[in-house]
């Protein structure tokens, strides 16, 4: 896990940059500890503390599984929220991947982690990368020459 923290607060406390790191699968346990410490320090308590850590884990796991094996996580506190952004190098995915209802256990439907992450956070936004753009553009897909840029998932919880 590589960390490159920056303080963007300018000293006024309006925005705190808590974590910025590139992670792979082996970093997930440490990532949960670090995110958990930041969330606890921001004042989150159970069950929302655990839900935030769980949601971050699910998005990060999704980046590892489907987004090129690694991701970049940034965590900051701003405007009464703890906001986590996770970017990956994969093909991206549209928001429609997240099921509206809890998927059944039978079948190969993935997206349960994303579903729960959206359920337990106050805000979850997906910038779906090339795949998301393709869906938005309809069946014609993305224009020729457009490269996959990966997904950027932002999740936030009030603190």
């Amino acid at each position, binding site marked *: *896990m*590589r*960390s490159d*923290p920056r*303080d963007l607060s300018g000293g006024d*406390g309006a925005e*705190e*940059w*808590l*974590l*910025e*790191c590139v992670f792979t*699968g*082996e970093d*997930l*346990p*440490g*990532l*949960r*500890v*670090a995110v*958990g*410490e*930041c*969330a*606890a*320090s*921001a*004042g*989150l*308590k*159970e*069950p*929302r*503390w*655990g839900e935030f850590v*769980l949601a971050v*884990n*699910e998005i990060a*796991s999704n980046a*590892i*599984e489907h987004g090129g094996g690694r991701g970049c996580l940034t*965590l900051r506190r701003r405007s009464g929220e703890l906001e986590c952004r996770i970017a990956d190098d994969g093909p991206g995915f549209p928001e429609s991947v997240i099921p509206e209802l*809890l998927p059944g*256990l039978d079948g190969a439907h993935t997206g*349960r*982690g994303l579903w*729960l992450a959206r*359920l*337990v956070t106050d805000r979850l936004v997906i910038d779906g990368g090339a795949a998301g753009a393709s869906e938005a553009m309809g069946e014609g897909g993305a224009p020729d020459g457009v490269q996959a840029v990966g997904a950027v998932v932002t999740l936030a919880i009030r*603190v």
Partner: protein
Amino acid sequence: MAAWDTESTGVIPVQRMRPGDHAFVSYEDDEGPWGVLTAFAWTGLGRGEKVMLFPTPGLPESEVLDRLDAWGPAASAARRRGQIVLSSMRSLILPHRKFTPERQWEGITTETERAVREGYQGFRAYIDMHWVADLDADIETMLYRETHADHLFETAPYSEICAYDRRAFSGEVLDAMAAAHPRNLLERLGSLRVVHADDGVVRLTGDADLATRAEFTAALKAAMARTPVAGRLLVDLTDLNFLGVGCAADLLLVAERAEGGRRIEVRCDAFQARTLRRLGAGSNRRLAVAEAAGERLDRGVGGEPGDGPGEGLGEGSVQGRQR
């Protein structure tokens, strides 16, 4: 079987340590100790405890700091305000030069009292046992220290990890030291340990996530296969530090597919029970979820110096803070 072997019982993940815990851990190479050390330090920050690290004597301080900082800026901020301190056994027993258990206990007691006076919720120390050779202490003295240190943990919010490099101690010594500690830790951060008990119980300790999902699910299926027709399998998650959605769903699926009247009872903490229920545990007739008593201290509790010396560690002690 050696007590420090991962198959032994009574092992917990480092994130589950509580004030009053005296824990043994061992490692086998230079990379080995870092996961537990950094997690121990970081969880201490989250709980508002003062952290003192006693790394391998001679190890460059910069290497320790780099490891701590790899997880984010909170560790360096904590060092600046004195919440994380790097020390050595030599320093702790000053002005004396020869180690005795009593001198070390006095040093720890002094530091614990200082941490409480400073307003921290507790004091925790990670001690790499290479100091034994550095101070030319003998094994018998060390064993006496480890088996007679209960007073440190009974009267103050103190917790301690004693980390043994398996290259530096014999198997016999490691066995004795592991047995001398009330707690043994999982060696690797994020690992999963499975114990199949004879009485229809499978205990899962550590982290159940993307990396350990196959192991987690295979353990459940194996345990279910051994469960008699119409019998009950108890899945004990009380020392599971983390339950990811994929593993939770696999647990529900194993229960749903149980044949012959078999059923599963899950024993877990309140948050894991909440996760299982969110994923549909309530509608699974073959599954019962029981919340184990006791609070988890790694779940968003803790506090900042100034919350009050000696105050409880419950959720009510949490204060928001700015870095």
